[in-house]
């Protein structure tokens, strides 16, 4: 099911003169790649921002209380956040589909 970023192109009249991109890769919901998913325990979290810093998919943001929140639409489950968290408050759990 394509998301709102999908650009339907039917034929030669819809494409530019050269291969110039028209939209964003947010169309690609890489969350489907996951085998494991990060689960963050706010109790232990010191809001150091390291998980946000090292996420190669820019899938961690901050909630209203300053705790990290994972964007599961794009998180690939690489496990870097869990490995780098200095307080071990991120656990990679089996993804259930």
């Amino acid at each position: 099911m394509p998301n709102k970023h999908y650009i339907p192109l039917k034929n030669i009249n819809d494409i530019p003169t050269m291969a110039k991109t028209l939209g964003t890769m947010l169309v690609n919901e890489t969350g489907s790649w996951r085998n494991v998913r990060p689960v963050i325990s706010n109790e232990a979290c010191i809001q150091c921002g390291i998980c946000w810093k090292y996420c190669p998919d820019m899938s961690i943001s901050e909630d209203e209380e300053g705790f990290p929140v994972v964007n599961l639409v794009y998180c690939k489950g690489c496990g870097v956040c869990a490995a780098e968290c200095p307080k071990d408050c991120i656990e990679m759990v089996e993804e259930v589909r």
Partner: protein
Amino acid sequence: MKYSIPTEEYVTSGTVACQGCGAVLALRYALKALGPDTVLSVPACCWSVIDGPFPYSSTLVPLFHTAFETAAAAASGIRNGFAIRGNDHTTVMAWAGDGGTVDIGIQALSGAVERDEDIIYVCYDNEAYMNTGIQRSGSTPWGAWTTTTPVRHFKKEEKKDMVEIMAAHGIRYTATACVSHAEDFVKKMKKAKQIRGTKYLQVFASCPPGWKMQSEDSIKALRLAVQTGIWPLYEVENGVYKINHKPKEFKPVEEYLKLQGRFRHLKPEDVEHVTRWRDRRWKLLEAKVAMTRELYGAEAAET
């Protein structure tokens, strides 16, 4: 949450990069330092693919894909094209992998540096031709497995020292950086942005599939590279060498090597070879720090 680097993002989620890709973080950090008034010249490399297939792109700055050898030449053209039209504020950055820099791209880079073109050239170094499936490059270190240096014939040539080659050109500013040390990298990129002329940075970027390691070890491996001294963090500015970070005591190189399957076949004498290489390199680096400080003055070193 605390933020040690700028928060604005110029790379979106949804890239087709592998899990744990260091190259994505490298560009993410570089663009945080440079901001939106930036144009990228990207030769054939992982980022040719990571950015996304037509009609989609994940970078929030204009990106010009160019042929493998030409990152620096295309960037020179872009820079001069902007200049003749009165734009001297847009940062032009050549963003290339190690293959496109130390092997096929070295001529164009050398030419651009000699002409002192006003561009930033960043090589994100994952130590092989990763985009084409992990073949060895001139930047592959001694001892590594790659598909063209299989275990029985692992690479027996030393890694080409590109930063030193740049320094030998008399380049205004060159530096190493490491994705694990994001703050240092961002600081160096900001510094580069302020300098007119050619700047070359080589940022160590991990590649879980190419280094044969778990994706979650991506940052750990890079940090160990710095902690074992295998990847020194240093700068050369106007000929003056400065070491940015020297571990009080180097961790044994094994800690770095054993994390990665590409080094699994190394025997104790091979590990010794790597250790000797590390030691010899650091001796030379420290000698250059002392020598250039003496030759070119202490003030220049204290930036």
